[in-house]
């Protein structure tokens, strides 16, 4: 039996999504930018997908662009907004606020722009439960702050960040900024505001995605985390948000994201979003939560010295991040893999870095515990038998590794 419990890494393609995509890989293969009927058929698919995303975000069609995935969406946000502000006023150095637990597709882009001398960045921390503080973000805002980027759901510990509260707070800050400018009898414009981005890649399956509700100007999503295809994502851009293109060579997506439409991928993303919009997703999520809680209980009952990393109360129903004292992540991963169970480590060690997880470290988890942490992420296809199997297989693995350890007493 092979058991996949790594849905935060990627999800399998839903068969309904594949069905929707298939014609666009074969008969309706046209270039969506062509004027002839082949092109128009393909464009119909793109338009249909756009409609699904507009429903998800509660936005206009023109507020959406398709990208190659979340990494590109995030790059367009950070680089594009900095570019727009720099083009407006080159004299100034701008400030971005983000958090220490973001995906590298945010952190490393900010660090790169810092290196280029274009911006300064504040990385706000998180508490030991894994949450950013709205007040800390507010306190970090300066006159030259142009963007706040906070992820909706953390990929390692699954904690749901207070996105709506941050969005509302930023709206208030903007009102004050505008009021102050108008008091001095000047006209406030696009470049007087600061903008709010959320990387919602890990949230789309479980959380409210309506942009006006969240008070977000920019929202990133990805196809392959929501049972859609890999290599496609999207970006919601609230009308009036200043973004300059970081790529050239085509007119697609209002010049913001040039390049031939990945029609089948875009349709797949649309189909995955349609499932979220229409299907009884809450039902799935309740089932996922029940199985997740069963797994936690099973582990806690059978294995001692375990510790859940991060808040259990306010996290997506799919995620468990748990430390097994005196056992090492990759060894556990390896032994579970030999049993056909796919999970992921809390540490980045397996991916080549020796550093403990930047997320767990930001939460104040000691390095030794970071290296002893595993992430299980369930999906809508996860069954009770699979969870039972994990509960059966895991205790002897932990026991074996602990016996091998110099600390076993």
């Amino acid at each position, binding site marked *: 039996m092979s058991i996949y419990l790594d849905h935060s890494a990627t999800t399998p393609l839903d068969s309904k999504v594949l069905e929707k995509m298939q014609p666009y890989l074969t008969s309706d293969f046209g270039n969506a930018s062509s004027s002839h009927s082949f092109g128009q058929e393909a464009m119909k698919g793109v338009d249909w997908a756009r409609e699904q995303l507009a429903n998800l975000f509660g936005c206009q069609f023109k507020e959406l662009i398709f990208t190659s995935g979340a990494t590109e969406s995030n790059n367009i946000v950070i680089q594009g907004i900095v570019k727009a502000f720099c083009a407006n006023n080159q004299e100034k150095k701008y400030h971005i606020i983000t958090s220490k637990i973001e995906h590298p597709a945010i952190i490393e882009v900010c660090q790169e722009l810092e290196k280029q001398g274009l911006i300064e960045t504040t990385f706000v921390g998180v508490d030991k439960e894994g949450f950013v503080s709205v007040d800390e973000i507010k306190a970090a805002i300066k006159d030259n702050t142009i963007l706040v980027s906070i992820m909706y759901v953390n990929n390692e510990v699954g904690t749901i960040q207070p996105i709506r509260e941050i969005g509302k707070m930023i709206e208030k800050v903007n009102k004050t900024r505008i009021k102050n400018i108008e008091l001095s009898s000047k006209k406030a414009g696009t470049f007087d505001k600061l903008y709010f981005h959320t990387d919602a890649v890990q949230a789309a399956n479980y959380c409210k995605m309506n942009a006006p509700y969240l008070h977000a100007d920019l929202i990133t999503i990805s196809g392959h985390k929501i049972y859609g295809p890999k290599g496609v994502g999207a970006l919601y851009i609230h009308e009036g948000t200043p973004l300059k293109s970081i790529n050239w060579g085509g007119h697609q997506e209002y010049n913001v994201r040039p390049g031939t439409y990945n029609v089948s991928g875009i349709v797949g993303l649309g189909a995955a979003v349609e499932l979220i919009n229409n299907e009884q997703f809450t039902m799935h999520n309740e089932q996922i939560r029940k199985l997740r809680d069963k797994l936690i209980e099973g582990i806690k009952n059978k294995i001692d010295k375990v510790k859940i990393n991060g808040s259990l109360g306010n996290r997506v129903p799919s995620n468990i991040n748990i430390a097994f004292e005196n056992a090492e992540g*990759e060894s556990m991963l390896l032994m579970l*893999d030999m049993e056909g169970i796919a999970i992921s480590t809390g540490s980045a060690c397996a991916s080549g870095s020796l550093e403990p997880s930047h997320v767990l470290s930001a939460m104040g988890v000691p390095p030794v515990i970071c290296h002893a942490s595993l992430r299980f992420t369930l999906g809508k296809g996860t069954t009770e038998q699979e969870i039972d199997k994990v509960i059966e297989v895991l205790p002897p693995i932990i026991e074996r590794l602990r016996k091998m350890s110099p600390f*076993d007493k």
Partner: protein
Amino acid sequence: MQLSKFMQYTDIVMDHFKNPRNQGEIENADGVGDVGNPICGDMLKIYIKVGKNDQGQEIVEDIKFQTLGCGAAIASSSLLTEMAKGMTLDEAKKITREEIAEALGGLPKQKIHCSVLAGEGLNKAIANYKGEEIEKVEEH
């Protein structure tokens, strides 16, 4: 060399990981070497029992290890104990991380550092037996 699917570990690495040789503790060991770096995550302890060969040279008569670490760290420790057993102390001290990695059929690039620890553990155990000052272990 056949590579397993996981982390591109070789069959030899996987074999040592699944069936570690000389794993455990030696009661009343003649020398104990304790090395590791909690930041990187690997912690290792080597126990040796010292005997003499026909020429009267001191040899590693018995050796055991305990490791908290990744697959490569466990396999390296296990393989080192196999290599060192029966060697004179002088020979055993000279086992290099390259020799360990080579005997394992190679290690993924990012895992080379894991093979360093095993040799250091043994060196420390020998030094401990000889009552020598332990050299500072370099960071990994």
